[in-house]
């Protein structure tokens, strides 16, 4: 449910970690995101960020995050500069991230950065005067993904609170589930973590959930966990995060969501996935009403439009 919210000022604010935001601020961003939906779909037009430039610096591969940020900036009437392949930049010559960011700071009004090292976005924010948005830093944080996940749950379930949410897959290296577990705990949802033994949720994340008053359940039994779930959030086992191939091969394919499994699920269960998926969700699930992951990917556009307009200072 969307409530009337007191106006908040986000102009110039960095978006680095979901932990930098209160529940009230998150609700404000989600409310603003809802207003952006018709603009994100192209049903309405706006040029509130006309004349503004976004630096889009992706030091790691990305499809949805990069394209949805670029789509968001374009839908707001702004322009985008940047790169998706760092090998074609001075990083290849050994330039530091700090120097690259100093340059972007003088070329643009807002910076979006994805980087393989944890904490890179926080560092970027130290060297930039313009706002920096974290588009994923290593196995660390991915706040805009977290916000679009919350937005998807809110739109589909009408509320975030009191849902029983199952996080499945690589909970150790998956950055989206770390941010999401924290944010869902802020809203007081029920949490169940389902993962192979060696990909369990890190204990510091579990501790954060507890400190917010949520006691997550842990299991490796997906069949059991899915019965009471309102939301099933599936993640890919990420080959690129594994220190060795042997460990990866041991766990890949442990879980697979298919129509057979879904026979045990609630009728209104929604399945989310930050994408890309490999084998963890069978394509037959795509046609069921449970499949929300492509709509979730679209939601990246209105949420990122909301964030860009709030931090750069454009008003609808």
């Amino acid at each position: 449910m969307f409530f009337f919210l007191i106006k908040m000022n986000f102009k110039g604010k960095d978006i680095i970690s979901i932990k930098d935001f209160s529940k009230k601020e998150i609700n404000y961003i989600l409310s603003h995101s809802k207003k952006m939906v018709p603009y994100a779909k192209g049903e309405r037009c706006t040029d509130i960020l006309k004349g503004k430039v976004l630096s889009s610096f992706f030091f790691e591969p990305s499809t949805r995050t990069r394209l949805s940020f670029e789509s968001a900036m374009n839908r707001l009437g702004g322009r985008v500069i940047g790169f998706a392949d760092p090998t074609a930049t001075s990083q290849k010559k050994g330039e530091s991230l700090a120097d690259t960011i100093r340059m972007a700071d003088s070329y643009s009004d807002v910076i979006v950065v994805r980087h393989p090292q944890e904490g890179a976005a926080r560092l970027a924010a130290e060297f930039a005067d313009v706002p920096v948005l974290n588009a994923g830093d290593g196995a660390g944080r991915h706040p805009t993904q977290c916000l679009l996940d919350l937005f998807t749950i809110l739109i589909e379930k009408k509320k975030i609170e009191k849902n029983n949410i199952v996080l499945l897959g690589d909970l150790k290296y998956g950055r989206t589930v770390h941010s999401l577990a924290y944010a869902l705990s802020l809203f007081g949802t029920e949490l169940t973590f389902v993962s192979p033994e060696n990909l369990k949720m890190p204990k510091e994340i579990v501790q954060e959930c507890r400190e917010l008053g949520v006691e997550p359940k842990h299991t490796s039994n997906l069949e059991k966990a899915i019965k009471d779930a309102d939301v099933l959030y599936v993640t890919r086992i990420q080959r690129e995060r594994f220190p060795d191939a042997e460990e990866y091969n041991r766990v890949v394919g442990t879980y697979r969501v298919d129509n057979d499994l879904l026979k045990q699920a609630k009728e209104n269960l929604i399945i989310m996935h930050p994408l890309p998926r490999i084998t963890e969700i069978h394509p037959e699930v795509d046609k069921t009403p449970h499949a929300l992951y492509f709509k979730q990917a679209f939601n990246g556009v209105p949420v990122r439009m909301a964030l860009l307009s709030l931090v750069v200072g454009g008003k609808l």
Partner: protein
Amino acid sequence: MKELKIQPIKDGTVIDHITAGNAVKVLHILEIPKTSSSIVSVAMNVKSRLGKKDIVKVENRELDTNEVDKIALIAPKATINIIREYEVAEKHRVKLPDEIIGIVRCSNPTCVSNSSEPVKSRFKVISKDPTRIKCYYCEREPEDIAERII
């Protein structure tokens, strides 16, 4: 005649009640003698009412309280005594500051603070008792703080 192992100092700072065995780490954190040409005396494993302790005496220099407070990371019970004309002019217990910069290395090997970027390690103190710190950059909490002193 009883002989003192370390003579009293006329002017300067005495850091007392350092956890036994940690005096050298304390000097390292305070960058002594790098930042000072004062005479420094160190006593280790000195008997006291509460067991053993280390003591550091820095002559002719009054250490800045905020600077010394960071030793609370490894010597939480230490006291700082400012000495003037052989008398204790000021005395207080170390208090952990809210932020620790450039002293502890992040336990996360892929944290940006462990790379060649031009930044010092930086930790927020999230609990003073027990001591818990969290990396400002990657948000990881090191468990073995004393082992990670740079």
